[in-house]
């Protein structure tokens, strides 16, 4: 991984590369406006069979709207949805082989847990014996068999969450949509559910489109992340790719911490404040993302070969347990955030080192409304 490859990052929206199969869902040039308010702009995205795709974005980025368009609760202003040979966006929601887990679960309050899970099979008029066995299986899968006869109001939020999941999965959809399903749970339960949800998805092999604003959640669970910003796709890539080689300044900052270095390239050398390093880039301004964990505290006076070294003063030091975050001022007002495994105590003047290959070129993220 070098600087040159960094500069050639393309937003990869096709799923074939990721899973090596024909896409299950193809989103083509989808746009949506509410009156004058543009919510989604020209979204194209493929979802592979069995893939766990996360749509990540801040509130107002349009992620829920995109999900609702796939489910059929909203109509796209432009663009098409294809599921195999079938034009999905022309179908009403009740004809789509897509099920949704709602943010607030949307369990039917007048039905028992069991009746909630059976709902989809009942309206499809499946034979009663089949309904009973499939509902039983689904409840078992989410470990809720003991609560089959309860009303939703009698069980906890986490349990309601499981029921919502069982109610969707029991219909064996080709695609499951999840709208911030974990956001109502407390932190511990949330982490536990992330793991459970992921392994459940592996087990059933159904494609998941998971909407969240939590970048950590997205990293933990996804095969690929589609980062949405103000109604446009910023980057679509695997968690490792998007973290290791963010395409834009926004992606770099939104997913994990980063140091954004604004530099100037001249004659194959990047100059950024007091820092310089060689780079095979055309002359002109350039923006780099350097992750805090890629900077390390150096000992001795001689720089390691091929590394950039700089002296700085520690301005702030925060202990995070396994690691420490240190803010270092490196002259010229430049502030670098460094993540290091335990420093052993308060620091003052430090020597920092990083490898130029870790400073990835990113595009500016222009302001959008």
């Amino acid at each position: 991984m070098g600087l040159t490859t960094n500069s050639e990052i393309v937003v990869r929206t096709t799923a074939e590369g990721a899973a090596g199969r024909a896409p299950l869902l193809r989103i083509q040039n989808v746009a949506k406006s509410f009156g004058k308010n543009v919510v989604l702009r020209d979204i194209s995205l493929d979802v592979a069979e069995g893939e766990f795709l996360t749509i990540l974005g801040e509130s107002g980025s349009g992620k829920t709207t995109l999900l609702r368009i796939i489910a059929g609760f909203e109509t796209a202003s432009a663009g098409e949805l294809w599921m195999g040979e079938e034009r999905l966006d022309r179908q009403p929601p009740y004809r789509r082989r897509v099920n949704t887990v709602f943010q607030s679960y949307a369990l039917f309050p007048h039905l028992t847990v069991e009746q909630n899970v059976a709902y989809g099979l009942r309206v499809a008029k499946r034979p009663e014996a089949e309904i009973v066995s499939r509902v039983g299986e689904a409840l078992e899968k989410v470990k809720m068999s003991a609560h089959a006869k309860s009303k939703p109001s009698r069980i906890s939020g986490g349990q309601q969450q499981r029921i919502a999941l069982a109610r969707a999965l029991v219909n064996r959809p080709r695609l499951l949509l999840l709208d911030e399903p974990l956001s109502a749970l407390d932190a511990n339960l949330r982490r536990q559910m992330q793991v459970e949800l992921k392994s459940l998805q592996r087990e059933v092999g159904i494609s998941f489109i998971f909407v969240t604003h939590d970048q950590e959640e997205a990293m933990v669970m996804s095969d690929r992340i589609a980062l949405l910003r103000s109604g446009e796709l910023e980057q679509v890539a695997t968690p490792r790719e998007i973290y290791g080689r963010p395409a834009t300044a926004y992606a770099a900052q939104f997913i994990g911490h980063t140091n954004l270095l604004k530099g100037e390239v001249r004659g194959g050398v990047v100059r950024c404040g007091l820092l310089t390093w060689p780079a095979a880039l055309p002359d002109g301004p350039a923006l780099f993302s350097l992750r805090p964990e890629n900077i390390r505290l150096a000992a001795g006076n001689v720089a390691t070969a091929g590394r950039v070294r700089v002296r700085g003063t520690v301005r702030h030091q925060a202990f995070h347990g396994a690691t420490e975050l240190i803010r270092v001022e490196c002259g010229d007002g430049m502030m670098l955030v460094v993540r290091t495994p335990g420093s052993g105590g308060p620091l003052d003047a430090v020597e920092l080192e990083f490898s130029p290959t870790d400073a990835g070129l990113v595009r500016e993220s222009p302001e959008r409304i």
Partner: protein
Amino acid sequence: MFSRAYKAAVTLPPLVWVTVFLLLPYLLMFCYSFWSVSESQTIVHSWNFANYGELLRVDVYWQTLLRSMWIAARVTIFSLVLGYPLAYFLSFYAGNKKDLLYQLVIIPLWVSYLVRAYAWKTILGSTGVLNTLLQYVHLTKHPLEFLLYSPFAVVLTLTHIYTPFAFLPIYAALEHIPRNLVEASHDLGATPGQTFWKVIFPLSIPGVVAGATFAFVLSLGDFLAPLLLGGPSGIMISNIVVSLFGAAYNWPLGAAISFCMLLLVVSLLVFSERLEKKWSFS
């Protein structure tokens, strides 16, 4: 939290009100129902069940009570049949016209009851709007007599007057249904029809029960519509009570009938409240 004086100041006025204007009159009425009227037209304070016996023995009383209930039942059914679709349409499909249409449903409630009852009189009378029109287009030769001064006229008028009362709680119940439940139902493959019967209607039952109770109780005790439009065949129990307290000067019997109605209405309210509770899930 609050001082004693404050609590007293807040609770006392309603307490006095309820005692003076509700409890005491009811108690008095209850006492009257056991008394009797002497030959010389004075109230005799002799305690017995004669009035209740008469209520059961004399055909006109219990028959009128039954007819009143039958009229009220029909009014209830028609009010629900009209009110429910209206509320459903307003709540789910009226979009930004919702508030306007809601006001249109409410506005008739601001018009005097008497005016609305009289309006039906001018519509249904033998020289009224409807009969004139029917003869004009040669559908009938003579005015239709059954239109006015009949149970039909009473049911029609009461339905018109009490439909908004049935509509309001149904509308409120429908408005309370989280829309994501409807989406969830569609999402799970239910057609709009299935969604209505399996989700929307069951969740609106408390509103239906409340609306039905309003329509039934209010029309059961109505006396103006039968007085103005009922004729001899459309008389209701309240008309009898009114005449017993008035021209007939038999307050004890009037009180006995009133007390029976009160009992009927209260047990109905208790029943409907239980039903509403059973069907509410929030």
